[in-house]
């Protein structure tokens, strides 16, 4: 018993206020109003949020329509699996989750019962027991056995996930800040895959498309039902290649190659995102994989091989600078605008303005060197992975946009500067 003979009574604490009953009435009213307001707000919110986004018709796209159902506005579970491994992961998650829910209900049912029946306010007197070795052993051994039942199917799935042997197709994937490169090793072609959602949508100047932040220029393409082995690495920092529908997530580690595999069973377009913080555009380097029927894949692959052959383009071709600059605007918008901004003004203190910049307006060699090699110690990366034509085009664009008047360059100037 305490000094006062009983525990603190709430109404006594309030009795020091002269208008206790009026206050209580006000508080009750406030509580009810607050609760109804909250409920109303919570109900209105989905509408408000949806109203901000355009749910209009899909913009015409060269990609096949998604074979996944239209994403719900309040998704609550893993995406539908389209590979055998993803199906196992989905089933495993369900199994584990329902066991946990059952245990949770059991334990808190018991606790709830105690809170209800063994209350002081209904006069329940406290018992004095405080240990029982048998019970301790039982509730140590039973959870251990439950864990064994979870570990067994999980082990089988781990072994399946790690078996990358005998693939039908091997693709090397490289993560860059902030795009992906897909290299079809045995077919001899490769390409970059960059986010195509316009900055205008990200900056709320245009309504957002349905695949906002999940669309790219060149998706990775694979044939249906082929075991695809992925060799994953990175160029700069750690990234992570992830497609939920495939059940594949593998960190891309610079200087190392890690492998993974999947076998997609359904034709369609599958989307994922980079899953390891990699800098400012981490949220803006999505992954899109298009699974085609084997015949469609064959013709796509043949097309790519041909494109690659002709893109061993004549680097000595003399381009019209205006034409290069027009091509260069596209290159600028997908690679440079994120930092240097669409208007060339940069971000003061972080990314220099290119408009009026003395390197951009000065002798070409400095700018070529910067674009090819980056500026170590700053956020400016090297862009040597772009083609000579693309680099010349983007340099020409910067040299003629926003009032700049720099001397234009040609692809062969870039080629000459490489390796120097």
């Amino acid at each position, binding site marked *: 018993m305490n*000094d*006062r003979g*009983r*525990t603190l009574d709430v109404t006594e*604490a309030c009795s020091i206020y002269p208008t206790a009953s009026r206050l209580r009435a006000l508080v009750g009213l406030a509580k009810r109003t607050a609760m109804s307001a909250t409920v109303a707000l*919570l109900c209105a919110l*989905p509408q408000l*949020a949806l109203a*901000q986004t355009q749910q209009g018709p899909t913009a015409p796209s060269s990609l096949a329509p998604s074979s996944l159902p239209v994403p719900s506005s*309040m*998704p*609550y*579970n*893993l*995406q539908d699996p389209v590979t055998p491994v993803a199906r196992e*992961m989905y089933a495993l*998650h369900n199994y584990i989750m329902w066991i946990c829910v059952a245990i*949770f209900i059991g334990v808190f049912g*018991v*606790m709830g019962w*105690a809170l209800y029946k*063994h*209350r*002081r306010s209904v006069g329940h007197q*406290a*018992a004095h*027991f*405080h*240990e029982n070795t048998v019970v*301790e052993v039982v*509730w*140590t051994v039973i*959870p251990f056995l439950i*864990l064994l039942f*979870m*570990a067994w199917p999980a082990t089988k*799935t781990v072994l399946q*996930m790690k078996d990358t042997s005998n693939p039908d197709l091997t693709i090397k994937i490289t993560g860059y800040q902030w795009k992906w490169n897909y290299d079809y090793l045995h077919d001899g072609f490769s390409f970059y895959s960059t986010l195509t959602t316009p900055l205008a*949508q*990200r*900056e709320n100047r245009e309504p957002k498309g*349905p695949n*906002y*932040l999940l669309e790219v220029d060149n998706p990775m393409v694979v044939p249906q039902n082929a075991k695809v082995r992925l060799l994953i690495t990175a160029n*700069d*920092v750690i990234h*992570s290649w992830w497609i939920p529908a495939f059940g594949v997530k593998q960190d891309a*580690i*610079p200087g*190392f190659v890690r492998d993974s595999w999947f076998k997609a069973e359904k034709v369609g377009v599958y989307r994922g995102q980079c*899953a*390891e*913080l990699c*800098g*400012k*555009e*981490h*949220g*803006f380097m999505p992954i899109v994989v298009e699974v085609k029927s084997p015949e469609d894949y064959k013709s796509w692959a043949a097309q790519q091989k041909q494109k690659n052959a002709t893109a061993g383009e004549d680097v000595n071709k003399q381009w019209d600078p205006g034409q290069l600059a027009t091509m260069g605007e596209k290159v600028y918008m997908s690679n440079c605008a994120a930092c240097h901004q669409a208007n060339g003004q940069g971000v003061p203190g972080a990314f220099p303005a290119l408009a009026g910049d003395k390197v951009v307006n000065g002798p070409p060699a400095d700018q070529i060197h910067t674009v090819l090699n980056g500026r170590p110690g700053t*956020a400016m990366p090297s862009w040597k992975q772009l083609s000579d034509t693309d680099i010349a085009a983007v340099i020409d664009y910067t040299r003629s946009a926003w009032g700049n008047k720099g001397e234009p360059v040609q692809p062969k100037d870039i080629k000459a500067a490489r390796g120097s």
Partner: protein
Amino acid sequence: MSSIPHDHAAPHDAAHEHAHHPTGIMRWITTTNHKDIGTLYLWFSFTMFLVGGVMALTIRAELFQPGMQIVEPEFFNSLTTMHGLIMIFGAIMPAAVGFANWNIPMMIGAPDMAFARMNNWSFWLLPPAAFLLVLTFFMPGGAPGSGWTMYAPLSVQQGMGMDLTIFAIHIMGASSIMGSINIITTILNLRAPGMTLMKLPLFCWTWLITAYLLIAVMPVLAGSVTMLLTDRHFGTTFFNAAGGGDPVLFQHIFWFFGHPEVYILILPAFGIISQIIPTFSRKPLFGYASMVYAVAAIAILSFIVWAHHMFTTGLPTAGLLFYMYATMLIAVPTGVKVFNWVATMWKGSISFETPFLFALGFLFLFTLGGFTGLVLAIMPVDIHLQDTYYVVAHFHYVMVAGSLFAFFGGTYYWIPKYTGTMYNERLGKWHFWLSFITFNITFFPMHFVGLAGMPRRIPDYAQQFADWNAIESIGAFGFGLSQLIFLYAVLKCIRHDGEKAPAKPWDGAQTLEWTLPSPAPYHTFETPPEVK
């Protein structure tokens, strides 16, 4: 600040020269008194909680809708990084040490901590470290944007904010190590006669074990950030493959610290809950010995599970299986603790004052977080969930609804002892219910968006995540505002605006601090009590 009365009734002999302690600001700067230092830690941690909270609210404001509205992506990355560092090292850890300082000497019948002067230094290292962390926002390049986990090579790329952060981490590590040495020595050497180790209150046991964990792993963190510093500036290539190093090495060293660290964050909270539940059930803690062994088992296991944070890096199969099994095993002693707490309540005589409400909230929500941890331990499922909002939900459930709720409960539980004034029960209940409800509105939907495929550490997201994110942001603002009720309730007690507290306001309380007057005199147990 509270004025703790000096107990003139205690005998002073000539040999026990007692210099009058300074007043005003010098009192707080030079104090070697465990109660003063406990107060300093608790106020520091609450301030950092508010600073970290403002960062969280800025994050949630940006994430309220798709598109970039408020901040730039680099600043967003800085916010997520510093929110994590400040909450972990500035809010949760110092709060736990604050309770340790206030309670451990009183609970074991000791007059103060073993190394009273080092205790002062342990605290005063923290404000300069916190200052450095906040200063990074104003440096060229801004605060680090690498995530609190600072993975190389991204952290090697960061601006000079990263160097200041490394320095701050060294300072905070030193503070933790010294504090832990103090706590271990105090508990092992200054217990009153009759207080055997198996009569120690659970709060002291959990802190004893936590202190060993801290001494073991803080130097490892220091090692990892020093290697990062030398990679950044002194030409080493620990984490650079081109020089023969490996980025994943950083992850191994960091998480060898990082996993025990999360148990460092929760064990003191377990201790507080183990004090509160028996008090309000009016029944002794069920299975005292099992509870001690369970905490020890959790601590030992915590050293061998770190690579479950690295399941997607490409570990070999044997490694994946080992870490999966070891991680799942931790569920066993943790489950034992939950069952013992429920068994303590069973057939008790239960009342629902605010400390007990927070303990119930802890039990319910921490267990939920523990289950999502088990889901994450299953490696094939973790492939889906690693680096998504499911993980964010998991650790906020265990750290906020776990540690923070336990600290709130502990504050309401002990504030009558610290200040001599009862807190206002109505305010306490409002604080609890609003916190409980808004916490769940904020963090429960994160399980959904994580399962559905939303990565973490992104400032903008695809359309299908919009509705849940809007709800989470509303909840977050509600949760933040609710904490002002707590501040108000605490200030009222400090200003003695409330009912005078007796020595033992909780009739079910059994430990030694409740035999002292409320507020506890500045010096207590100068003569050790007899413990039967």
